[in-house]
């Protein structure tokens, strides 16, 4: 099937690749079907695109690429909702908030997007410790520390 995307125009996707976010994403509960699409950049980022609405497309990144020691535990509730049986089925992403000035761009480490890659189920989870996991973590800092 073909879908319209926020940044990549019209693309052809496989039905089997569609991810279900049962409760949508916070602030966007009405959209429950998404797909991950690669973006043409040298950075570890991708587009989490709603298959239902063109404008709903989030730029997401691999959190570990931006913060090397990023780690979190999934609660039993999250595991249940994601129908996780095996840790190898998990992929996690972080929502990027890009700004015109690159140095002002941030990633959301407090609420990672976790995906069960086998069952194609996704959820934006909320971690407990907002000091350890900032809502707005500057990409600029992460880039510097990565050198």
């Amino acid at each position, binding site marked *: 099937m073909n879908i319209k995307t926020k*940044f990549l125009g019209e693309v052809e996707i496989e039905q089997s690749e569609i991810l279900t976010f049962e409760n949508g*994403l*916070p*602030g*966007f509960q009405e959209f429950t079907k998404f797909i991950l699409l690669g*973006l*043409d*950049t*040298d*950075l570890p*980022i991708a587009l989490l695109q709603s298959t239902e609405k063109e*404008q*709903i*497309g*989030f*730029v997401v990144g691999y959190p570990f690429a931006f913060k090397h020691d990023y780690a979190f535990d999934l*609660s*039993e*509730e999250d595991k*249940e909702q994601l129908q996780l049986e095996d840790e190898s089925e998990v992929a996690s992403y972080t*929502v*990027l*908030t*890009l*700004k*015109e000035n*690159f140095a002002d*761009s941030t990633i*959301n480490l*407090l*609420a990672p997007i976790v995906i069960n890659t086998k069952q194609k189920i996704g959820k*934006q989870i*909320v971690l*407990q410790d*907002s000091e350890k996991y900032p*809502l*707005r973590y500057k990409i600029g800092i992460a880039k510097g520390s990565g050198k």
Partner: protein
Amino acid sequence: MLVLSRKKGETIMIGDQIEVKVISVEGDQVKLGIIAPKTVKVHRSEVFEAIQKQNKEALAISVDALKQFKL
């Protein structure tokens, strides 16, 4: 909405597993103790509101901002 009056030290039960206790009341601030199963997440509402807001902000990025990443 159910409204209950409680005094310091008193509790309420939500279902049979979640207990909320009023620990102290000082001026306009109430300190609550919450006992809940591990599977139940307890957050301040502001956290959810902040995440909703952040998602909306993330969505507002322009194609131009994205182009900065193209090398």
